[in-house]
């Protein structure tokens, strides 16, 4: 299992939980697993083509998955995944 950090705008879907558990061999599978526990979350994270939305950043531990293998980024037991809105700063 992996711990997933949920940002404030998405916590309505996770019953206000900041940290939730989900499993998967990679980020794509983890998102599918999140969807099973929290219906509607995948639609928030991914566009109609299944790609991570433009304004969503996903970090595996401290690394942006766009610098890894995007949704194909492999996960191992105990990894922490953070979902962070991209619109900030500047």
């Amino acid at each position: 299992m992996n711990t997933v950090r949920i940002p404030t705008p998405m916590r309505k879907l996770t019953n206000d939980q900041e940290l939730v558990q989900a499993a998967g061999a990679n980020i794509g599978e983890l998102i599918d697993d999140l969807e099973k526990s929290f219906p509607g979350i995948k639609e928030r994270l991914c566009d109609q083509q299944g790609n991570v939305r433009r304004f969503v950043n996903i970090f595996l531990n401290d690394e942006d998955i766009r610098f890894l293998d995007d949704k194909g980024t492999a996960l191992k037991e105990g990894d922490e995944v953070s979902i962070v809105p991209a619109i900030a700063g500047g």
Partner: protein
Amino acid sequence: MAACRCFQIVIWIFLGGGKTNAMDKNLSPYFTHLKCRECGRKYPKEAVHVCDFDFGPLEAAYDYDAIRAVLTREVIQSRPESMWRYRELLPIDGEPTVGTQVGFTPLVKADRLARRLGVRELYIKNDTVNYPTLSFKDRVVSVALSRAREMGFKVVACASTGNLANSVAANAASAGLKSYVLIPADLEQGKVLGSLVYGTNVIGIHGAYDQVNRLCSEIAGKYGWGFVNVNLRPYYAEGSKSMGYEIAEQLGWKLPRHTVVPMASGSLLTKISKAYTEFQKLGLLDAGERYTIHGAQASGCAPISGAFKRGTDIVKPVQKPDTIAKSLAIGTPADGYYAIHVMRETGGAAEDATDEEIIAGIRLLAESEGIFAETAGGVTVACAQKLIEAGKIPKEESVVLCITGNGLKTQEAILGKCGEARLIKPSLREFEELIAGEVTV
């Protein structure tokens, strides 16, 4: 579910927002709500910055018919010379309470620089002398903190590459607000000291700006603080429009044909375009007047310029920015996508400059116009030079360069690159030997 959310929001707005604090007693008839820039969903005027549905940015929305009825050139010109002379177009409910003297910086006709760059009509929008902290960030902070006070925040904060930290620290001090500024640990000394002096809490993060930014997003979700460029970002970002309004007014209610804007997140560029468009929409400018906006980045961190040049709007993040222009070193620019679209839609271009070119740009501006800009100013001048040389800015058309910060804050970047003082004893003989052949008495 989405429809249900929209319905709730409409009811919320209709009922006046649910809160019973001071702001409800003085709701702006002009600034009406927040709106998702991606899907158009409406949100109440709260401390929220992204859409629940698609994480798109929320932006301030206005009743332009109501503004058109009250805001004329005469009304604007009758007001004090600050950014708040355009108050109906800025997203607060009551009167501004923080930074009331910010803005209306000089628009300098730069004839000597124009000759050096080979253009006929060139102006510098000189925010190196913005009040109180010598950068355009005073504009955005003035709005963000005025709004923060209306919302009842006691602690304000930011993620910053330096200038924003200075401005939050200074303006929070003057407003009596507690502040935290989070910065990359390796910023220029002038920017670190330029925050510390105001008694703020400076937190240096071992990491690049994007890591600071991510941390701030997480902190903002956990603490009830007003993060000017996170949960207050829809208000903050609108402050940048004032630079565009001022340019148009100072040019005699005309637009420059070309505007060159430095890009970090890309927000300033999009807001200057929004300002020009709003003035046209309100009839303050000729609606048929064309304008073109160009963006400038440092080659060592050019995610927006890179995407523009590749012909795409997919901004590939820069993992490890490597440039002396630290104030522009944002590897994951929040508004990059929108900045690219503004440049394309207005016929503009993106350019980038190496560290060497940035230093040359700082020196060229200083030596020709007497304006000492920080590294971002060097980027803007150097990129403008490239755009002119490439014919993307035709020589006979008017140009404004947005110079956004003061060089006294980034002295390390040019230390030893402008020569050294020549040292002598207090002796007339030594002086005359030194300048022999340089001047005649």
